[in-house]
């Protein structure tokens, strides 16, 4: 029983962390039809920035600064690597994204010398507590609550603000949105800012559970979050969140069994099954390519 609870808790927590990354994938896809391969690496860079900033700054200053810098990184990546390719075929933008992904990994290797960096302890959330007899870290409980709050705030932003209305319009029809006077580049920037911010928050929650961080630390969580976004129906925010919790829970359950080695294989098998049964994912709508 205790064991089941601890697996459930860690699954929900992991799911929440994936959700924060998955939203970034799904939002960017919704607007640009681009799989932003660099997103997982932005998540990793946020983790590394945390390592370096906490070396010289108190946590209360480091965390907000990490979030601001992560947002800035997302913004700059879009402006430098994707915006110039706005009229180019989608494949070119995708390759640009892969390039940015490797650039970030290589930069991280260069700066860290390839050595694992100790992730700082965050006193509030790294503490161990006991829930129903199962020992767990505070972050496990904080994560789903925080995810819920952030997702609600995001939904509010998208459905009840002017910029949210612009985002929905741009996602559906670039040209007509422009005819309304919407500056699509500004809206795309906002999308990257929001996605990077959530990835930054996700990074703090995620890496707290690990001792150290390496330049490749972003690729697997990034990939799993991407799977979650596809699973839920890429382009759909509720889909990404639900997908992330399902992926997180199933990963946690497999890791708690004798088959833990196969957890990633299982995740992808699950994805394949869903896509065979429902090609658009759980909440996906049929997307007709823009003409």
């Amino acid at each position, binding site marked *: 029983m205790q064991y089941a609870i601890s697996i459930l808790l860690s699954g929900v927590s992991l799911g929440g962390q994936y959700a924060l990354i998955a939203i970034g994938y799904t939002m960017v896809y919704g607007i640009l039809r681009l799989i932003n391969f660099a997103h997982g690496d932005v998540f990793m860079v946020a983790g590394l920035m945390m390592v370096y900033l906490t070396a010289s700054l108190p946590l209360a200053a480091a965390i907000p600064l990490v979030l601001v810098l992560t947002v800035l990184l997302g913004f700059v990546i879009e402006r430098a690597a994707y915006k110039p390719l706005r009229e180019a075929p989608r494949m070119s933008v995708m390759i640009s994204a892969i390039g940015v992904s490797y650039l970030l990994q290589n930069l991280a290797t260069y700066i860290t010398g390839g050595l694992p960096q100790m992730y700082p302890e965050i006193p509030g959330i790294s503490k161990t507590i006991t829930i129903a007899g199962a020992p767990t870290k505070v972050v496990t409980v904080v994560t789903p609550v925080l995810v819920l709050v952030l997702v609600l705030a995001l939904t509010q932003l998208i459905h009840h603000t*002017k910029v949210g*209305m*612009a985002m*929905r*319009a741009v996602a*559906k*029809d670039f*040209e*007509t949105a*422009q*005819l*309304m*006077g*919407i*500056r699509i580049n500004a809206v795309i920037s906002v999308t990257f800012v929001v996605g990077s911010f959530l990835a930054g928050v996700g990074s703090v929650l995620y890496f707290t559970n690990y001792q150290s961080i390496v330049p490749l630390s972003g690729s697997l969580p990034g990939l799993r979050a991407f799977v979650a976004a596809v699973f839920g129906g890429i382009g759909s925010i509720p889909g990404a969140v639900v997908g992330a919790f399902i992926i997180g829970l199933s990963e946690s359950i497999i890791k708690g069994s004798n088959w833990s080695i196969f957890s990633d294989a299982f995740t992808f098998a699950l994805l394949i099954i869903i896509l065979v049964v429902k090609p658009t994912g759980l909440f996906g709508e049929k997307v007709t390519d823009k003409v």
Partner: protein
Amino acid sequence: MLKIENLQVSYGGIQALRGISLEVPDGKIVTLIGANGAGKSTTLRTITGLVKASSGSIQWNGEELLGKSIDKIIGAGIALSPEGRRVFADMSVLENLRIGAYLRKDKEGIEEDIRWVYSLFPRLEERSWQLAGTLSGGEQQMLAVGRALMSRPKLMMLDEPSLGLAPLVVQDIFSIIGEINKQGVTVLLIEQNANMALKIADLAYVLETGNITMSGTGAELLADERVREAYLGKNG
């Protein structure tokens, strides 16, 4: 007044407009008729800035529009109701109208204009909360026009508003266009339904493969033999 001079546009090696000049005087209804592919839509899209011109000039009340960003052009009082309506299908009718007023900051004015659009198109008011994608073709066209009006344009451009609509609905739309014009909005209309367009127009231009080949008042062109033969389907 909108004044286009020697406008040339080409994309992908094809010259869509080969140096056209035309004028849209304030308060008038001007129509541009021509066959498919003559460059009618390209003309409107170039005015809004969606398409870049290769040379020429587009002056709006003495101000050069070429090279300006789309939001600046829309903000200067020009609106386009695009071909194929292009309403935001998964937004409600009301949201579609609100997004038409995206650049405006005067909240009260916006509410007032929503009521104005609803008075022009009572059908839209009945369907205020309905998703635009569930409307009929005619209602979507009304919404596209209403949405364009929400920016309070001085010049309203309409791209094929009658396309694919039943004759009765087309008449409704045209009478509303007349009504909008009476309320002081200048109209630039492009149509394949040349008969309807010429009847309503003060001024008309005929566009053929990127060139303007004829111009005159609506009545003049309506009576012209060549126009009758080519665009009104009447031989002799």
